[in-house]
């Protein structure tokens, strides 16, 4: 493997570590946001996502996503079962090859966080064993195909979104964000509302944890977006600064949105805004200028700030706002490419409506959004329903009221009085 580019490899290895770090970050972010009685369960859902997804990825997940397309652009083949034929292999363009296993690791971390995100929609009420099973089924039936569609470029014969439709998604606006948003909506609907939804505030029990989690996610997102350049290139640098600008912009625009609505600038708002901005720039970070990224952040933050309140209106309990933040944020980013994407940033990108005057790219982006959302929502809905009807997906009412930590895990999160704890 003498031909690999060590600089590119270093960056992709590091990016894999960074994106993996996002899932414990998400556990902290989500864990702080629920009530104290179910915080460990919330975190445990993320850790199960890491465990189950990793095992599946090695056994067959990587293969069905990145294996040679089976013909119709829907799914990859089984050539890499057990990571067969990946050791000592390389991927990437000439002079910029990296070890295939670095790519395997990097992509694995995307699968992990995508399914972990869903747990936010069903906080405080899911049966843990059902969640563990759901993770495995969902990665196989929902994540894997969508990731193949949009990530498995194989010179025109790979996934249909990237290779046939030609829509642009730099780092996972469809695969990770819109997918998780649509699936979250399906889950929230199937599981139903928490006891006390709309009546009780159900406010975050530990806001410093939420901010810490947001910081960990922000940090890891540089690996997510800039790592998607698959090398330490100028494009990676562009993706990184764009990520920073959009994230910061959205944090501020959410804050301003709150003030304009007559409220206070809340900590939860700033943290959510940062995530919404990072989400919105995810598909676009390699295709727009920094000023474009700023616009995406400002719009993405405000749109998500508006979207999170929809759940009260439409009466579904997407507990930690996966739909509003990831679903809507991802849509903003995908559409933005169709509007302000420019080849001046990346010749492999495209020119959006405002650059070329042609709606052609925008149309492709919309198709990619709709296809992803429709498939993800439908398939997830069916999977969740089947689980609900068979082994059950929701805990009993008294378990939910007591909290999942003591009932499901026989633990409680805190015992911080130094004098009474033994």
């Amino acid at each position: 493997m003498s031909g690999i580019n060590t600089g590119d490899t270093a960056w992709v290895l590091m990016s894999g570590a960074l994106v993996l770090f996002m899932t414990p970050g998400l556990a902290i972010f989500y864990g702080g946001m629920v009530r104290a009685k179910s915080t460990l369960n919330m975190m445990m859902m993320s850790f199960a996502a890491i465990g189950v997804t990793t095992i599946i990825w090695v056994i067959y997940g990587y293969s069905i996503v990145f294996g040679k397309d089976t013909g119709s652009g829907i799914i990859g083949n089984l050539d890499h079962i057990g990571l067969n034929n990946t050791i000592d292999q390389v991927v990437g363009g000439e002079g910029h090859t990296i070890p295939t296993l670095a790519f395997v690791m990097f992509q694995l971390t995307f699968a992990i966080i995508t399914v972990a995100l869903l747990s936010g929609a069903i906080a405080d009420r899911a049966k843990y064993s059902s969640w563990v099973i759901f993770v495995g089924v969902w990665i196989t039936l929902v994540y894997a195909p969508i990731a193949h569609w949009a990530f498995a470029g194989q010179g025109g014969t790979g996934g249909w979104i990237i290779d046939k439709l030609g829509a642009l998604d730099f780092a996972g606006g469809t695969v990770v964000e819109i997918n998780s948003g649509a699936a979250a909506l399906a889950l929230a609907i199937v599981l139903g509302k928490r006891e006390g939804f709309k009546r009780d505030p159900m406010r975050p029990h530990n806001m410093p944890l939420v901010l810490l989690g947001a910081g960990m996610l922000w940090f890891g997102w540089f690996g997510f977006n800039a790592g998607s350049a698959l090398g330490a290139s100028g494009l990676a640098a562009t993706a990184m600064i764009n990520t920073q600008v959009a994230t910061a912009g959205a944090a501020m625009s959410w804050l301003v949105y709150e003030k304009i609505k007559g409220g206070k600038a809340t900590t939860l708002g700033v943290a959510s805004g940062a995530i919404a901005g990072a989400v919105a720039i995810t598909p676009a970070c390699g295709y727009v200028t920094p000023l474009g990224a700023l616009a995406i952040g400002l719009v993405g933050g405000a749109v998500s700030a508006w979207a999170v309140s929809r759940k009260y209106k439409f009466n579904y309990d997407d507990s930690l706002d996966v739909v509003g933040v990831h679903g809507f944020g991802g849509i903003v980013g995908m559409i933005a490419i169709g509007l302000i994407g420019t080849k001046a940033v990346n010749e492999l990108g495209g020119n959006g409506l405002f650059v070329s005057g042609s709606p052609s790219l925008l149309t492709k982006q919309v198709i990619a959004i709709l296809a992803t959302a429709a498939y993800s929502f439908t398939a997830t809905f069916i999977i969740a329903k089947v689980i609900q009807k068979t082994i059950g997906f929701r805990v009993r009412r008294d378990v939910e009221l007591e909290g999942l930590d003591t009932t499901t895990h026989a633990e409680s999160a805190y015992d911080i009085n130094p004098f009474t704890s033994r």
Partner: protein
Amino acid sequence: MKLITAIVKPARVDDIKVALQSNGIHGMTVSEASGFGRQKGHTEIYRGAEYVVDLIPKVRIEVLVDDADLNRILDLVVNTANSGAIGDGKVWVIPVETVVRVRTNERGSDAL
């Protein structure tokens, strides 16, 4: 023997402690409480929705006193706790039949 229970603002605890000590009372018990009354709570916001936290943090102070000291100490506590603002709190007095000092098993006034 009487038990004086005072529900007061947290910020007043230090002053009351000092006042008691300089008036010959060398013990008290303190615990956290919260209450509502005429004083309004504060408003918190979660995802744009306002909700009122109307149980306002207070501190409960309990002091055992001899009958002879009651009026003096009661006034002392009330005056020290007073800030003139709403939510200053309540103080009440309850009759106590026996007091025991655990360490020595002394009873009554000796136990104070």
